[in-house]
């Protein structure tokens, strides 16, 4: 349907996805970059810092973009990343 959308959806609040928190265990990371490559929302990027294993672990760009698909934690060979839902009080 080709109409241009000019007004915000009325039920936007109801469907807002929960806020997520990304946890990185930096020293476990071996710098394969899978999580960066496969994140559908491009939430991660490579950082400049060097971890215990001598590689660049990922860094969070914009945590609010995360939609909890958890693909990063599934694909990570070293169990160095996981996602949890933020608690309500933290949200504010």
């Amino acid at each position: 349907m080709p109409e241009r959308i000019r007004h915000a959806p009325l039920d936007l609040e109801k469907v807002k996805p929960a806020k997520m928190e990304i946890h990185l265990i930096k020293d476990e990371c071996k710098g394969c970059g899978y999580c960066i490559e496969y994140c559908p929302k491009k939430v991660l990027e490579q950082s400049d810092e060097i971890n215990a294993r001598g590689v660049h672990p990922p860094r969070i760009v914009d945590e609010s973009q995360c939609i909890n698909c958890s693909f990063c934690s599934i694909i990570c060979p070293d169990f160095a990343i996981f996602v949890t839902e933020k608690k309500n009080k933290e949200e504010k």
Partner: protein
Amino acid sequence: MTESKESKPKQEEQVRIGVYVCHCGLNIAGSVDCAEVAKYAGTLPNVVLAQDNRYTCSDQGQAGIKNDIKEHKLNRVVVASCSPRLHEPTFRKTCEDAGLNKYLFEMANIREHCSWVHLYDKEAGTEKAKDLVKMAVAKAALLEPAVEAEVPITRRALVIGGGVAGIQASLDLADTGYKVYLVEKEPSIGGMMARIDKTFPTMDCSICILAPKMSDAGHHPNIELFTNSEVSEVKGYIGNFHVKVLRKPRYVTKDCSACGECVKVCPIAVPNEFDVGLAVRHGIYTPFAQAVPSTYIIDMNLCLNKDGVIVCDKCIKACDRQAISFETKPVTEELEVGTIIVATGADVFDPTVLPNYGYGKIPNVITSLEFERLINAGGPSGGHLIRPSDRQIPKRVAFVQCVGSRSEKSGKPYCSNVCCMNTIKDSLLIKEHWPDTEIYVFYVDIRAYGKGFEDLYKRARNAGVVFIRGLPAQIVEDKKTHNVWLIGENTLRKEVYRINTDMAILSIGLEARKDSETIQRLLTLSRNQDGFFLEAHPKLRPVDAATGGVFFAGCAESPKDIKDSVTQASAAAARAGILMAKGHVTVEAITPITFPEKCKACGLCVKVCPYNAISLNKDLKRVEIVEAACGGCGSCAAECNFGALTQKHFTDEQIIAQIDAITENEPEKKIVAFCCNWCSYAGADFAGVSRMQYPPNARIIRTMCSGRVSQKFVERAFARGAATVLVSGCHLGDCHYINANYQTQKRMERLWKKMEQNGLDKQRLQLLWASAAEGEKFASKMREMKIMVDNVKPEEIEKGKKVFAKVLEAD
């Protein structure tokens, strides 16, 4: 299907023409001496019988012709009476009944083109009638019998567009017993009607009356539904279309039970197009509750798995029936159909182009389509009309009419047909729910033209809706309250109004689909200046396209309401059904004949054919014609420089014979006029019917299209000393043969250039675009050209003869 002349040896038999001059009571005899004309006809070559009678079209008159064909062994018949547009079919049938091929009949139009337009000059009228008979006899001598090609028709139909028109057309055809393929580009059928809350004038719930029809169409054994699909290619011709349909994948299989569990887990949320963005939908969704098919769909532009990796499997996990499959690929279906119904509908006008109304900037200015979704109980606000800024129910509401209709400023000069009644209905809906709401309707005219419409209008006024004539010049927002001020002039009271309301609803018009050009190109259709598809005849063939086997239904043809769309859909289904019931169609034998030995395979004819009916066979170095696809304009014959192609029944020889007949005597006083059958010839007929008087200089040669008029015809007329030449056709863009008259214009421009280069007065060649309704335009052209004829000097005519002398040698 190419027909070459070699295969048909010309029968060497003596031409025996019978001429019948009709009195038509006093219609002709009043200003033409018919006995004199008949006497003259008797002296013409090949004429063995010439007589005048009172009413040739009467049973008695026809019986006479039949009898004469047998008794006098007539093998050509000429009737000089009314317009061939009126009685040619009658006399053709008479000839056929007597065993004479109907293409051996010719008519001279001495009523509309002679007696009725020269009522007070019997002498000149009689002379003109003689000339017209002479032309007809000259052509008749060269007529050849023809057999109409018969084309089989596939008994399957394609319906493009699954709105109410497409659904109705599909159901009608399917119930008749034909297989129907219904193609819809959205995920569900239903179209615009599914989005509307109530229908006028009966206030029925729109989706409640549509949903059963949608369901019927979805389950009908004769209907195959292709949703989320688009027609990508159409080849072939009437009765034999090869269609390719691209089916985009839904990524959800038919096992879907529409339980909606997947939607709950999908992390993607975007505005729902169905609700004009007023509600949210997810990456996996169904556009609305009553959707047919009810199978959900994944929006692959948004899905996290769009790059081919299953990143997110939440919907897969949520689906008990394992109906989600990311492996599905687009499929191209190939269909063979006999008829096509175009029911592609219309778009709504986008009011952001009118900055004075502030749509898109002022939150409380909405469109009528957004209103429909808000007032709909199944819509985003649960049926509460709320204004977007604070979600309160408004106490004062304004409707602004003609937004994107009847306005040059918005580029939409036409009336959109439905908005007046839609607003009246909407205002009553508000009054029904919240009776205390103040409602103002700003209008130009209220067009309540249909059955029950005026009653509804009256009801709205009685309910207290205030109608104010004069559209607001501007809508201004009150920044504090977010109310809107409407400022304009009340044209009845001649005073300026400033009215404050809680919200304003723009009653937006309908416009042609933005992608109509694709359909136009695929099916070689034409569109009017407003962008809607053009019918074959506005009165008598309102649902037929100019392309054979293609029909229109619904808003694709022009803006219309639901009732008219359904009516037209049933009409289109009936028209398509007639073709398919017959199982075959005959093509009038006015298609081209080729002479392969003369063909240079230059391909010019291929380029000018509006129907893509000619193709170049490079191996054999000749052109091939699909007769069934040919519309019969004759453009190809006019374009061929080598005489390798001519149009049956309008051959070069026949037209040249007519030109020669006109220019035999006193050519310096005559206008050689070429008129196309559909517009300018009909316009000249209309001048006759309306008894518009004009000077008797013109002799009209009828061609099917002005595109048939080859440059050499015009040159020949001048070479033989004609004072002036008129070429006339339908208005550009209105051509009966899609765009063939653009070729006419090109040829005339070439001729004008040539005349100028040779020092001739190019005014002597006139080009006129006149529609069938523009009799007065034709008559005034005749008057204008009479003055030109009087002013053309003999030296000028001699010069013209010399310049174009070459064309006479060629034959």
